[in-house]
């Protein structure tokens, strides 16, 4: 038997390495399943200020100070809805601001905002009191110390420790107007300005 042993045919190579080897990257499929950018992010900054209509405000507010708006300059001033609209160029982003006010005022604000928004009620109050030329007076009144008790209690920036926080999502243009008014009337803070305007509106319902 000088014949050479024929080579074994055997099974052809199948390159089965990948059967036993884990994928190169466990996370490789994830990129195909979920986009890296959440679709909701496109909706973060609304193109238009979704402030409710004037009619909605009229229906919602427990009272208005329409009767105070007697000054001739009224018609030349922008409506709060217009003022709340985005700035030209559409770059007016929303920011959260915090204002501090007494719990009772917050409750009033909440009720006034039914069917509307708290931001709208706040801006509307500031606008209307300013139109009436009473904002300086309202701020000064709000700063007067309480003399009804035994002690004259010192005023704090937040107007007292019993205040609660109210969060408002305002456009940058809203914030700029509020801050301009704070400077104009030397109000201690943005919260003090808002408190004064809301207090004036609360006490001049009729």
């Amino acid at each position, binding site marked *: 038997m000088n014949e050479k042993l024929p080579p074994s045919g055997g099974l052809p190579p199948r390159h089965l390495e990948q059967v036993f080897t*884990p994928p190169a*990257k*466990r*996370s*490789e*499929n*994830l*990129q195909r*399943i*979920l*986009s*890296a*950018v*959440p*679709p*909701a*992010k496109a*909706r*973060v900054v*609304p193109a238009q200020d*979704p402030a409710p209509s004037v009619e909605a405000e009229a229906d919602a507010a427990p009272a208005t100070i329409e009767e105070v708006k007697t000054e001739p300059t009224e018609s030349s001033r922008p409506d709060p809805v217009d003022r709340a609209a985005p700035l030209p160029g559409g770059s007016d982003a*929303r920011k*959260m601001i*915090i204002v501090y006010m007494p*719990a009772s005022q917050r409750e009033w604000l909440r009720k006034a*905002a039914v069917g509307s*928004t*708290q*931001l709208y009620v706040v801006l509307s109050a500031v606008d209307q009191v300013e139109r009436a030329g009473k904002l300086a007076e309202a701020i000064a009144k709000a700063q007067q110390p309480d003399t009804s008790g035994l002690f004259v209690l010192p005023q704090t920036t937040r107007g007292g420790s019993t205040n*609660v*926080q*109210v*969060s*408002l*999502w305002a456009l940058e243009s809203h914030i700029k107007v509020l801050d301009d008014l704070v400077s104009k009337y030397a109000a201690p803070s943005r919260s003090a300005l808002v408190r004064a305007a809301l207090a004036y509106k609360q006490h001049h319902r009729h």
Partner: protein
Amino acid sequence: MDSQELDALRSVLSRVVAFGNGKGGSLKTTLSSNVAGLAADSGMRVLVVDLDPQGNMSEDLGLTQVGQDKDAGESLYEAIARRKTLVPSHPNVRENLDLVGADSTNTEALVSWLQANMLRDEDAVYALARALQPIADQYSLIVLDLPPGQEQLIRVALAAARYLIIPTQADISSLKGMELMGQRFAKARANDNPDLELLGVAAVCIPEAAKVLRNETVAAIHRSFGGEAPVFGTIVRHAAVPATDARNRGLLVHELETFVPSQAETFARLRQRAAGSQVERAVSSTAVKLASDFAGITEEIFAAIAKREAAA
């Protein structure tokens, strides 16, 4: 906050996923860290917020050296209680992965702050949502690791989250913890966050061979939810050795599996041991299977989110 303001907040926080179970040791930190790590590895920017005072997330991500987890939890406290910008306590713990860590001292202080403020200000329940809002657009995914207790922390987390995932083991205590979390979920949806969705229940830590136990656990989950519950198809197996190795070494499981020796290396080690050499224990090959489970459940989680986003 009125509904319009909440809508604006929630649209920014559309990919916030909370992992919670009312019982400790239910693998929620391990699951959430591995899901976050895989997401970061895929190229997504991911933020992990550890709300558990035990701070085990830091260990899972390798911050176990002395001083590395120092001040963990302070940034979250400062962001919520003092309204400072939330800054990750440990940025880039992995590529694309930032961590807001936790520790017992700061978490205790945070819970006290929440207890005091949630009584007098109903908007305080959105404190975490507000803290996340300014930085949320930097991330594709935000993962919240909930504590088993600390009701106030769980409530603010569920008010900030878009999705909830409940991991549970097969034992009755874990299943009770799952039910407790389900009750918190229902309460959060009713009172604080109607957009919150139960993305799914993840059955974890069940041996692969225990087919009957696996089926019984899934049936028990369905029963607890009064019928059909969203249960992920991938069951994360019980694999004590690689799970322990991963945490002790500060590696995620898909990272650990790269250290599993090849067959040739295994034989070489056997020869060395036979020759009397001291050989360090090798990484268990089960790490590969466990990594496969975590990858599988992460894919399911991503698919579930993608499905909801497509339908929105």
